């Protein structure tokens, strides 16, 4: 492909101004859209100061959010870290919305602005728009309006019911936030009109068959309590979305409290895809910026000096310390995602015999970007790792798998980077990204409706790993307060169904008032 070279570099120093940002965007855009054929939401680029970045940090990166003390806590922590120089601020922040909002820090140099525009405005943006988890779970168009509504609604509640009352509900809801997401395909959006029509029809039927005579018929002993199965079915049990369950069935909640629970729940749901696609999302963005920056350099849009600056920060971002380096804190999602994606590029272009055996359908296909775009659209972290972590990368990172059994006194090296170990390592690493495995499986299983309305919650214990006892007691207290009656949490072994432990909590009655 013959492409015109740049007449002169976009910039030479590190200073930038708005017209330069505009020109950078105009040069990057055709590379991303015409050559890589990315499919993005329209971009909105906003320049912010460090202080505003700190603000954005403390409200989970959203431009507007309701007020709560925990965000203040976030803020003071971040501020402290930043001031002490323990942690730099991100160069950029991007919001999954339509239009896609990109925050750029004013402190960035011109090179960094080019980098973050490629990274966020094209990489993340494409991922948000095309990945199936995001498509399935989030509504990029509506999120900002919804947050606006949430903020207003909670402020109104505070005016009407007092800050303290609202804060209590929010505290409790935040504690259960991770248990406030639907993990499986969402319930079909209800058509409210159809619903209302159906209700009217039922009412009409009831009116038609009404006969006052029935009232006079003596009844025998009251029929048995509703059978267990029917009761559970009526309540939609078992239910893993505890906040949803409380919102719909909590007997003591007022309507505004239900709405607050709903707000927290929907926001948790909005962030659920991000938690499942951290590696892929960052990998896709990093791959995109790497490709765009390299192209810019090849065509003379950026100088050698700027390219060196880029490479330096790029290598910092994708650095993966080894387990014994003292800096190891788990896998760096940038490194893992970018590494695997670069490897896919390699095996598309120059496959070895091993690659052809492992990846017969993509090895040597010759068009890495198309292959990657397909992967970005149809995988999440877990499936991505279990599908595309190649033996080449396992050897490159010298991965090994360690197993810790409670019954044994020593750890065992289960697999290393050799022929026997590739698949085992790949499976083990994929599991680490399986959110359903990493997070406890907690479900509401029953309610004693006929008796004391005790709520029974069950934790299906996997591999003998129980819940953190201190936090569990605190969260359970919150749950009991919301439910209004006693709550019992049983930890049950997932396989043997043996009960390992149980916690219970009584509501504080003054709480809901």
């Amino acid at each position, binding site marked *: 492909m013959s492409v015109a070279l740049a007449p002169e570099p976009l910039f030479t120093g590190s200073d930038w101004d*708005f017209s330069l940002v505009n020109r950078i965007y105009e040069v990057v855009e055709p590379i991303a859209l015409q050559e890589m054929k990315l499919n993005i939401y329209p971009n909105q680029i906003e320049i912010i100061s460090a202080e505003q970045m700190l603000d954005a940090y403390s409200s989970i990166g959203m431009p507007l959010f309701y*007020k709560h003390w925990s965000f203040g806590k976030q803020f003071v922590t971040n501020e402290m870290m930043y001031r002490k120089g323990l942690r730099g601020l991100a160069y950029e922040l991007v919001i999954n919305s339509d239009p896609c909002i990109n925050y750029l820090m004013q402190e960035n140099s011109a090179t960094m602005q080019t980098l973050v525009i490629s990274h966020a405005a094209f990489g993340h943006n494409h991922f948000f728009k095309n990945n199936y988890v995001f498509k399935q779970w989030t509504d990029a168009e509506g999120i900002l309006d919804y947050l606006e509504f949430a903020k207003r609604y909670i402020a109104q509640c505070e005016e009407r019911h007092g800050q303290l009352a609202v804060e209590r509900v929010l505290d409790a809801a935040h504690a259960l936030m991770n248990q406030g997401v639907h993990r499986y395909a969402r319930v079909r959006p209800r058509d409210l009109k159809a619903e209302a029509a159906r209700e009217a029809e039922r009412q009409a039927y009831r009116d038609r068959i009404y006969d006052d005579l029935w009232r006079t018929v003596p009844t025998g002993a009251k029929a048995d309590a509703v059978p267990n199965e029917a009761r559970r079915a009526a309540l939609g049990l078992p239910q893993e979305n505890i906040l949803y369950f409380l919102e719909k069935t909590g007997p003591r909640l007022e309507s505004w409290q239900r709405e607050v629970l709903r707000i927290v729940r929907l926001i948790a749901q909005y962030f659920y895809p991000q938690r499942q696609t951290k590696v892929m999302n960052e990998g896709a963005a990093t791959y995109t910026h790497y490709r765009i920056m390299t192209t810019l350099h090849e065509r003379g849009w950026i100088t050698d000096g700027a390219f060196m600056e880029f490479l330096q920060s790029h290598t910092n971002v994708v650095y993966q*310390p*080894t387990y014994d380096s003292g800096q190891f804190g788990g896998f760096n999602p940038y490194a893992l995602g970018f590494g695997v994606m670069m490897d896919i590029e390699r095996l598309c272009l120059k496959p070895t015999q091993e690659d052809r055996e492992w990846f017969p359908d993509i090895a040597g296909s010759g068009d890495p970007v198309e292959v990657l775009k397909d992967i970005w659209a149809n995988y999440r972290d877990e499936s991505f790792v279990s599908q595309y972590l190649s033996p080449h990368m396992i050897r490159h990172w010298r*991965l090994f798998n360690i197993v*810790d059994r409670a019954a044994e006194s020593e750890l065992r090296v289960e697999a290393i980077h050799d022929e026997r170990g590739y698949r085992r390592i790949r499976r*083990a690493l994929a599991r680490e990204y399986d959110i359903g495995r990493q997070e406890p499986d907690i479900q509401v299983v029953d309610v004693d409706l006929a008796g004391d309305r005790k709520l029974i919650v069950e934790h299906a214990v996997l591999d003998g*790993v129980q819940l*953190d006892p201190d936090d*569990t007691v605190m969260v359970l207290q919150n749950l009991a307060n919301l439910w209004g009656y006693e709550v019992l949490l049983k930890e049950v072994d997932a396989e043997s169904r043996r009960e390992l432990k149980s916690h219970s909590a009584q509501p504080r009655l003054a709480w809901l008032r």
Partner: protein
Amino acid sequence: MHIVDRRLNPGGKSLVNRQRFLRRARAYVSQAVRDSLKDRSIKDLDKEGQITIQRDAIHEPTLHKAGQGGNRERVFPGNKEYMEGDRIKRPNGGGGSGSQAGQGEGNDDFQFVLSREEFLGLFLDDLELPDLAKRRLIGGAVDGIRRAGYSTVGSPSNLSVPRTMQKAMSRRIALRRPSSRELREIEEEIAAIEARDPAGADDAVRLERLREERSHIIRRRNLIAYIDPVDLRYRRFENVPKPVAQAVMFCLMDVSGSMTEHMKDLAKRFFALLHLFLTRCYEHVEVVFIHHTDRAAEVDEQTFFYSTVTGGTLVSSALDKLLEVAKDRYPSDDWNIYVAQASDGDTMQSDNGKVVSLMNDEILPMSQYVAYLEVGREEFADIEAVGTRSGLWQAYAPVSEANRNFVMRKVHHRREIYPVFRELFQRKGVAERTA
């Protein structure tokens, strides 16, 4: 693509959240603030500062898996020596294979920075100055600007359009300026008559009359302007002196040979607190430093705290000096006067009579509040608590009983300063509640 410059948007979006967080952790934070006094030097007492509170005070619990126990499996990068099937000793902690590094911090402290205002607010929480309402507020240096009606002259930027239009309208009505509607009606009528094809009998006459009327209207409209220079009104502002409550604080300290460095340090801390407190209560606070041996002198701050003068002890000399300065520069009608005296209590018996009478008859009547702080040796704390009293203490004791605005306390150790200070200035309601 849009580029938006958000840098000029108002910052401090997190302010409310931050305040709520402080309120939430208030009990812990104010305890931490008071504790931090121990570590702070007087000079940066009122700087912003870092404080540390227990993390569990503000813990947000979630349901998550425990860091230990059960069967676990993990993948690590950077294998060097391990082969499949190798056994490795459990790292201490018993389990988790080092995987839970981020989760074991439950008991860590939580550090953050309070701004100066927040720090002082918590630090001086619940305190108030006794007798803050002074006889008279003095006209001070601060000029306020306030609106003062309208004027006929002024700068264009102060032009009040509504008021000008209002004036113009009343003038037009008063002078009967024909409106444009009247003119239009006449013109329409003329046009209508002119347009009649077979002209009516008296049309010519009528047309004549109408034309005359029209020229009359046009002339009047030209003569009487729509807006005239006399209509212009400008917003007027005037400077008003704002009354300022002002206070003077007299710091009296004994610097005779019997005062050790430790005692001076105690006194200095007390003075610093008092000064801090006064600056928060009054916009304008002046401080007068008087040190004394057997002679008293007004000195600057540096000399006051750091000079070494030796000599006997004559407390009355300091009180004399105080009165002299007060009469000279701080008439009690205009100033709220606070006196803080620090001494080790050594005094000449013969001087006590004069001291008491000066205090009773002259100083107390003109002052808002007099605090006497007796500083003792740290090592004598236990002995002196039993009851031996210094000469000055014995002399002041009856004064203190007779006057509400005279208080005295004894301190031996740095850590007692702040509690004593709080005790002296505790808001009345609070004191009773805690009592």
